[in-house]
């Protein structure tokens, strides 16, 4: 199950929807916007995606994970739009009969999503500093980095 959403991710709902009487282990990964990275403050992030390709890529990654591990449920929810500090930009839930598969699959999924899925985040300046404008803020592009960039959030 793959979803892009502009809404806050409801963890309890995700748990309830994915409930499965044959699984004994659940591993949930949440990537959350940090306020503080050392001394630098982040106010909010804005996520943009190539929506259809992002969904297709994540569905493909779910299919690959199901081939690699014995897992019963995979739920990947990624936020788009503005994500405030403290909110999760991504939730990955894997349920499996045995916990090792769930841990490995969840970690592989987030690692691979961060490399392969066409979604970009931008750090938005504090609201007081500037009048909002679509092109305001700084895009975060991990390696390779043709422009100065940093990684304000989860990893």
């Amino acid at each position, binding site marked *: 199950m793959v979803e892009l959403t502009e809404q806050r991710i409801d963890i309890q709902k995700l748990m309830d929807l994915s409930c499965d009487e044959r699984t004994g282990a659940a591993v949930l990964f949440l990537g959350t916007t940090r306020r503080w990275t050392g001394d630098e403050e982040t106010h909010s992030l804005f996520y*943009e995606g190539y929506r*259809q390709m992002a969904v297709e890529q994540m569905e493909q990654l779910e299919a690959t994970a199901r081939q690699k591990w014995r897992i019963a449920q995979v739920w990947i929810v990624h936020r788009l739009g503005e994500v405030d500090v403290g909110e999760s930009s991504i939730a990955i839930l894997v349920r499996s009969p045995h916990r090792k598969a769930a841990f490995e699959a969840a970690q592989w999924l987030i690692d691979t999503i*961060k490399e392969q899925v066409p979604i970009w985040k931008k750090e938005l300046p504090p609201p007081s500093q500037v009048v909002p404008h679509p092109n305001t803020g700084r895009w975060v592009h*991990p*390696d390779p980095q043709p422009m100065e960039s940093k990684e304000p959030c*989860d990893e």
Partner: protein
Amino acid sequence: MDLPTPHATVELPVFLFAAVREVVGSDQVTIQTPLPTTASALRKILSQRYPQIDTWLAVSRLAVDRRFVADEDQIESATEIAVIPPVSGG
């Protein structure tokens, strides 16, 4: 049937995202390209039309019909192209 004949020239939408979109000032442009072609030939067309994204192109991947393509890949048919700068989702 309206299949392109070999080396027919087609018009294709190119989707732009993030910093590339902002540099060009648009989330979609159109290019003309012969088909079949290669990913590196598409890069050259983009670079000639939009030299301001050269530094971005150098670090971006291309997607054809929502799949990444390698520079040497032969492209027989295409409906949409996208420039994928280094991603930062997750």
